[in-house]
């Protein structure tokens, strides 16, 4: 191997120890033990770059946007719109007008259900989801179906937590008006084949909404390659501030959709007789948004882009593989969700020990995991479980932290068995 090739390989190697100092909170001690944060699927920690970006807005660049003639407003508007362009590039959308800023993935689902959904779903129609959806990709559609007299159909999961493509395809019928699916399951870690699903739905003229809350921080996303019609994700799971998120929609769909909320910024002109709406994406952005949060979200996208999503994905894949292997060696431990294509999320149960007790014991070891139903009660029902324990990885986690998790689980066993 040539020297150049060796050097290239070395530079391609992800150095997690170089990344960790970027996250001030990781030096925290919990109950005297180093924090081992394995609850990234719930929310991720923030790098210094994001924290500084948000503070910098308030110290040097804050005013309301899209309104003022004054210097500060122009400055804030430019920074906010620059974040929109970063989100466009991140998703490889064609145009920044296809990027609607929302509060988070949940609001994006509600927006599409209440605009596209209300306009296109009627009595007797169907909305198709899968058995692994988060509550936020179930309830907004349920509300819509109730209002319209439509049916929510569900593609059932296999025992490994996958969605069978052939049986999914059978559910696509003349009554199906929209498909709404997660890219990556928050409870099981399953990656869904979005491009394949979109191809099958589009063959029947059905648009596809993708909940990318868990996938966007964990794998490269190209909305043109996936050819999905809508894609949503949240800033707070991709190392940015909470209260900000993105709804991507194909321009022609967004253009045809009625507005979501009424208010300032989403209008072109208002009289008491008639209002004309603003152009995309502002038509869907009523009121003053989370300005500093949006700008800091842009800094988070810069941060993960600089590290590289392929490198982050490879690193988390290594952690998932290692953790799966280590946890599988523990007698009485069962991993829930064994799909062939998985990322970032590892759910498990332990014979004779309730997940809540696992969580409490691990917590005292400084290991933060999630226990419960993960806002996916139908997934728990599918596997006949009240709850699971879930470790979920981020770009700053290490194999050593997986070892701490494993040692904690052994302590749990020592206590309860």
């Amino acid at each position, binding site marked *: 191997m040539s020297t150049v090739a060796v050097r290239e390989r070395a530079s391609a190697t992800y150095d997690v120890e170089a990344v960790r100092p970027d996250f001030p909170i990781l030096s925290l001690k919990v109950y005297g033990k180093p924090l081992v944060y394995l609850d990234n699927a719930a929310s991720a920690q923030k790098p210094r770059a994001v924290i500084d970006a948000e503070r910098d807005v308030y110290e040097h660049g804050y005013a309301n946007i899209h309104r003022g003639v004054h210097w500060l407003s122009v400055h804030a508007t430019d920074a906010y719109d620059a974040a929109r362009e970063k989100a466009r590039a991140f998703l490889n959308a064609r145009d920044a007008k296809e990027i609607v800023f929302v509060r988070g993935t949940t609001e994006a689902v509600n927006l599409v259900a209440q605009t596209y959904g209300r306009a296109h779903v009627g009595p007797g129609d169907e909305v198709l989801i899968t058995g692994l959806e988060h509550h936020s990709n179930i309830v907004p559609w349920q509300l819509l179906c109730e209002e319209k007299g439509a049916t929510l159909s569900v593609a059932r999961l296999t025992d490994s937590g996958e969605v069978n493509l052939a049986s999914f395809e059978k559910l696509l019928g003349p009554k199906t008006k929209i498909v709404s699916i997660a890219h990556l399951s928050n409870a099981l870690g399953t990656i869904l084949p979005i491009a394949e699903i979109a191809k099958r739905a589009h063959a029947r003229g059905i648009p596809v909404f993708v909940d990318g809350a868990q996938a966007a921080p964990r794998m490269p996303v190209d909305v043109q390659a996936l050819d999905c019609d809508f894609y949503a994700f949240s800033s707070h799971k991709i190392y940015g501030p909470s209260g900000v998120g993105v709804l991507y929609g194909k321009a022609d769909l967004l253009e045809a959709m009625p507005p979501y909320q009424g208010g300032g910024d989403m209008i072109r002109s208002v009289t008491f007789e008639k209002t004309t709406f603003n152009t995309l994406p502002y038509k869907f952005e009523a009121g003053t948004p989370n300005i500093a949060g949006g700008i800091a979200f842009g800094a988070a996208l810069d941060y993960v882009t600089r590290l590289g999503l392929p490198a982050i994905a490879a690193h988390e894949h290594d952690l998932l593989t290692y953790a799966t292997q280590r946890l599988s060696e523990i007698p009485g431990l069962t991993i829930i969700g064994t799909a062939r294509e998985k990322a970032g999320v590892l759910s498990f149960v332990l014979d004779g020990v309730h997940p*809540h*007790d696992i969580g*409490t014991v691990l917590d005292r070891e400084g290991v933060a995991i*999630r226990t419960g139903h993960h806002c996916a*009660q139908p997934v*728990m029902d599918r596997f006949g479980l009240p*709850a699971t324990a879930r470790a979920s990885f981020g770009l700053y986690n290490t194999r050593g932290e997986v070892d701490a998790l494993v040692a904690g689980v052994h302590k749990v066993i020592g206590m*309860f068995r």
Partner: protein
Amino acid sequence: MSDLRDLYQEVILDHSKRPRNFHAMPDADRKADGYNPLCGDRETVYLDLEGDRLKDVSFQGAGCAISTASASMMTESVKGKTRAEAEALFDRFHALITGKDGGARNGPELGKLEVFSGVREYPVRVKCATLPWHTLKAALESDGATVSTESEGPQAESGGA
């Protein structure tokens, strides 16, 4: 800082592994279902009443160590007591685990239930310990509805992922 053993005392671990009065009561006078959405725990409490007295109490369900042990020890503690005595015991127990008893010794003696004093150091686990008691109360007031722990304390699991 409290040790884990203050929460998971031997008596609690024993009752969680081998719960007492752990069975359905087919001819119960009253029963109620309890649900804690934080951990998915479900417990059913059965009552056999003789006038105002709790002649027999049993429970069934699946829960964490704290809620199972609490249910088990509750059934032992309230059996034979009047409704008013059982409710007074719950008030006292509640004060103990939320740390609001201020060390005062008002009301009935808790006896073995004192082992739950460690729960006060774990605020998110208070609901686990009170689930069976809320369910007992619902059974006494029996309208057949499922009680949820969510009427108490901070909202535990309403969102997130």
